[in-house]
């Protein structure tokens, strides 16, 4: 009986170590930058939740709009109340697939992630180039892309058209760790 029991334990252990295929970060960083003739505006969010599922190459990201912190309180107020309406749409999300997940290794490589980005309640299909580095205990993803405010129905009044760029550069950095619990 005993060897069988040991064997079962071994199998259990193997499945447990194998199930370690989810990588997650709760402190992902996203920054956006708007370059306009009147002023440059930048905001940081360091509370982004990002999950990489290595079993099906999926990636899911959740962002709280109110977590974007601006240099000036007035900018933050306008951003939340007038532009992204974060009371109505508190979260932005991205759900996508890493196209060539198997190619990711210790050496940083550029990979494409294709998926649906939802901001301001508007869904849009998007393909993003990102740098992936995978080590034993982490998956690091970073890069940047440009979003167009009109695509997400974010309206900028004519009065401040010179202060806010139509195309916003978004930079991101997620250091995923194996998910335990």
């Amino acid at each position, binding site marked *: 009986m005993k060897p069988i029991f040991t064997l079962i334990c071994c199998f259990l252990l193997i499945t447990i170590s194998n199930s370690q295929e989810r990588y997650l970060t*709760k*402190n992902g*960083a996203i920054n956006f930058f708007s370059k306009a003739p009147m002023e440059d505006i930048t905001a940081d969010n*360091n*509370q982004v*939740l990002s999950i990489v599922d290595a079993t099906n190459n999926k990636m899911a990201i*959740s962002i*709280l709009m*109110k*977590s974007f*912190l601006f240099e*000036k*309180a*007035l900018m*933050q107020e306008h951003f939340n109340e007038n532009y992204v309406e974060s*009371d109505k749409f*508190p*979260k932005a999300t991205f759900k996508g697939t890493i196209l060539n997940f198997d190619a990711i290794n210790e050496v940083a490589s550029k990979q494409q992630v294709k998926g649906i980005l939802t901001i301001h309640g508007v869904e849009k299909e998007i393909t993003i180039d990102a740098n992936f580095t995978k080590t034993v205990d982490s998956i690091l993803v970073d890069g940047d892309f440009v979003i167009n405010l009109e695509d997400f129905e974010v309206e900028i009044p004519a009065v401040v058209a010179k202060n806010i760029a139509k195309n916003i550069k978004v930079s991101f950095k997620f250091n995923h760790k194996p998910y335990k*619990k």
Partner: protein
Amino acid sequence: MKFKKIILGILVVGIVGAFVAYKIYNKPHLDITEASADITISANNLMQDFSSDENTANTKYLDKIIQVKGVISETKIENEIGIITLKTNDNFGSILCHLSKEATKKINTLKEGQTITVKGICTGYLMDVILVKAEII
């Protein structure tokens, strides 16, 4: 004479207007250390409110200064920001407190298992309830 007075009047209004506009533009962020908490609650109850009904909790807590009492499960510093995790009864979620610059300096004095009170602005719920610009009390 009359003409001069009008010009002077316009000038004064203009200067005052510009000053007010400048003040509004540079309106300072809310000072968490000075401001009193809108809501005082335990880490467990806060988590429960969000996990049971996120929408109601959003209207109740978002953008408010919340004072939370709880037990530390983890402290760390990432991107120069101190992060305190407070335990809850929930299996997955906890309260994530991102500290202000000043509070980050004090993070080394904190120990796991210690009960503390943190005051910060609630920005929402992902897996965890998130507070930003938090101060240790």
